[in-house]
């Protein structure tokens, strides 16, 4: 009887896994509309990208992408359930249907896109991995880090990059791996590690949370490409299209100078056919992705265009310049496909 009990416990677990995978099979758009709320996987707290502010409201670039989607799909940017995810959960949470969308500084890699049941949508931030060290150690380049211990978060591309970099440059780095970014940063701050590594955008934002930011420097080397993109479950093409085109729409809006403040006015007055299509005055772009024609207008009026989102979350609070994340027409690599 004891064995039988054990057996049922195990079955219950498998039942749970199977249930998760079966219920998620329906169309995500229908699901979200029926629930009336978008569940969006975010980080456990990365300032600038997704972080609760002092009143407990989630803010950040990744958060605004969720809000734009909620505005486009549900007509209300506040109808969101934010689900904080640890790094190693970020893909499973979306493939198992726990969240409709993960918008959480996730690097678009070939394996994740093809072998792990996820689909990436569009790049919202071009990042790269960097290193933070103490000023007193007097190192100027990552090549001088031989023998150093490095605090890193588990389940990230960062963790793999550091292993590759250590092997390629024969640095004998000791990677101390933590479950969460906060634990890793705390261990670095308390002196367990000589180096803290993650994407440079987050290095900048996390440095501001240290007690003594002025005693830490970010090394010039960027050792990887990290195109960050929201991701959805593999196999629901319509849902993937919605996220992709909301993001492209926000970038296109910046190109055309459509902002949160002037969007409604532009819709009424603009004579530019691209703007007219974008804001739903002409054409039927919304129907292509199963939405009405005001989808992008709602997204833009609730969070602003890409430039406004960047400015509000990254430039004003963290002092991050646009860099490569500037529009292609202004010297960056941000290039969204046309809305037609």
């Amino acid at each position: 009887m004891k064995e039988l009990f054990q057996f049922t416990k195990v079955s219950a677990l498998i039942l749970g896994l199977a249930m998760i995978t079966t219920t998620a099979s329906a169309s995500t758009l229908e699901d979200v509309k029926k629930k009336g709320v978008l569940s969006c996987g975010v980080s456990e707290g990365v300032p600038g990208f997704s972080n609760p502010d002092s009143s407990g409201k989630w803010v950040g670039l990744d958060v605004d992408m969720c809000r734009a989607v909620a505005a486009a799909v549900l007509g209300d940017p506040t109808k969101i359930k934010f689900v904080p995810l640890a790094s190693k959960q970020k893909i499973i949470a979306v493939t198992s249907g726990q969240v409709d969308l993960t918008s959480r500084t996730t690097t678009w890699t070939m394996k994740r896109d093809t072998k792990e049941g996820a689909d990436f949508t569009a790049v919202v931030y071009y990042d790269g991995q960097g290193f933070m060290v103490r000023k007193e150690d007097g190192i100027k380049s990552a090549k001088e880090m031989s023998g150093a211990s490095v605090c890193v978060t588990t389940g990230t591309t960062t963790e793999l990059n550091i292993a590759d970099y250590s092997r390629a440059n024969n640095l004998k780095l000791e990677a101390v791996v933590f479950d969460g970014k906060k634990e890793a940063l705390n261990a670095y701050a308390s002196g367990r590690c000589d180096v803290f590594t993650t994407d440079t955008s987050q290095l900048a934002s996390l440095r501001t949370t240290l007690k003594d930011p002025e005693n830490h420097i970010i090394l010039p080397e960027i050792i990887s490409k990290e195109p960050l993109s929201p991701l959805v479950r593999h196999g629901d093409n319509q849902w993937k299209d919605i996220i992709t085109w909301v993001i492209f729409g926000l970038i296109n809006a910046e190109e055309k100078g459509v902002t949160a403040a002037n969007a409604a006015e532009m819709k009424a007055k603009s004579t530019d056919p691209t703007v007219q299509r974008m804001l739903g005055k002409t054409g039927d772009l919304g129907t292509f992705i199963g939405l009405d024609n005001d989808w992008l207008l709602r997204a833009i009026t609730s969070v602003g265009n890409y430039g406004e989102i960047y400015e509000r979350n990254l430039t004003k609070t963290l002092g991050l310049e646009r860099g490569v994340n500037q529009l292609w027409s202004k010297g960056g690599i941000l290039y969204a496909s046309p809305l037609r």
Partner: protein
Amino acid sequence: MKILVSQIKQSFNNISVSGLVGQMFVLGLIFYGSYFLLLTTQENLTARGIDSGFKFLNSEAGLPISDSLIEYSPAKSYGTAFLVGILNTLFVSFIAIIFATILGVIVGVGRTSKNWVISKVSAFFVETLRNIPLLLTLLFIYTVALGTLPRAKTPFNPIEGVFLSRRGLYLPDPIAHDGFGLVVAAFFAAIAIAYFFTKWAKKLQIRTGRALPKTLISLLVIIVLPLLVFFILGKPMSLEYAELKGFNFVGGIVLKPEFSALLLGLILYTAAYIGENVRSGLQSVPAGQIEAARALRVPKSVIIRKVLLPQALRVTIPATTNDYTSLVKNSSLAVAIGYPDMVSIGGTIIGQNGQAIEIIAMWMAVYMTINLIISALMNWLNSRVQIVER
């Protein structure tokens, strides 16, 4: 034919047969249900393009592990990485069980002590550690340890070759030279001698009533004989000291802060529980038995060994089995303080390739195997101390 039908009818009325049929039916349902679920899960995974199966264990891991008992580099396979995790889990659990037991016995005996200070200190120890979540204890130990220790460049260096810093405790590494094998051989020979001596001494006691100090003599043999061989051969061993090079020490044996904090946390937490088991065991022995033994002028040490302990163990061992298995499971909290145990490494593998079901199954299989072995050993020990009815 009619007889057969009536026989079947009759047997259904029979309680034991109908009970059996009912059980078979339920069992069949469960099997069918799990088969169905397994199949659905498999289909859904395939539909999403998620790999399944254990093929991934052979592919290159690429992930860094800071603390490994076997040779490991990121070029090794996922299977090797997981094995490193299993060994780390086993290693930390094994050492923690030994020390938690020793400390637990001290605390348990301390709580029953008539000395006011000792009993209050023990009670304070038990109540504090038992009532704080282990995770907090671990984080506390880890943070405090890191906060108070010096950086690697200015280590605390109490004696030659020993360095204590935030990078861990570095000790000299003993290197065996030619002839050290003889010392090991002498050690095993000494154990054999001690074993046969104890057997002989027991027989002697039964025959003549003369009791020799068996344990003391055995211990002396086991310690002295290998030492003697060691010195006769001219100390065939040298020490390799750790040396600070650049950021880190090179050489020596290292106890990393993550390992030490986890080990300490597990020992303290489990010792509190074992202490209570020991106390309840000791208090379960009726006071009259001790008084009776005293009245017969049985020596105090014999009272403890022959009257108190055998009866106390009957109460202590079953409860302690639970605590040992809990300790093994609790070691999975390692992930919070960066020690690469099985759960931490498995979690990383899930993060890299998304094959959660396989890894979770492997976790369950390993924990179940370890704990079933512990239970089996402890049950065997328990059966040895139970009352033999004659």
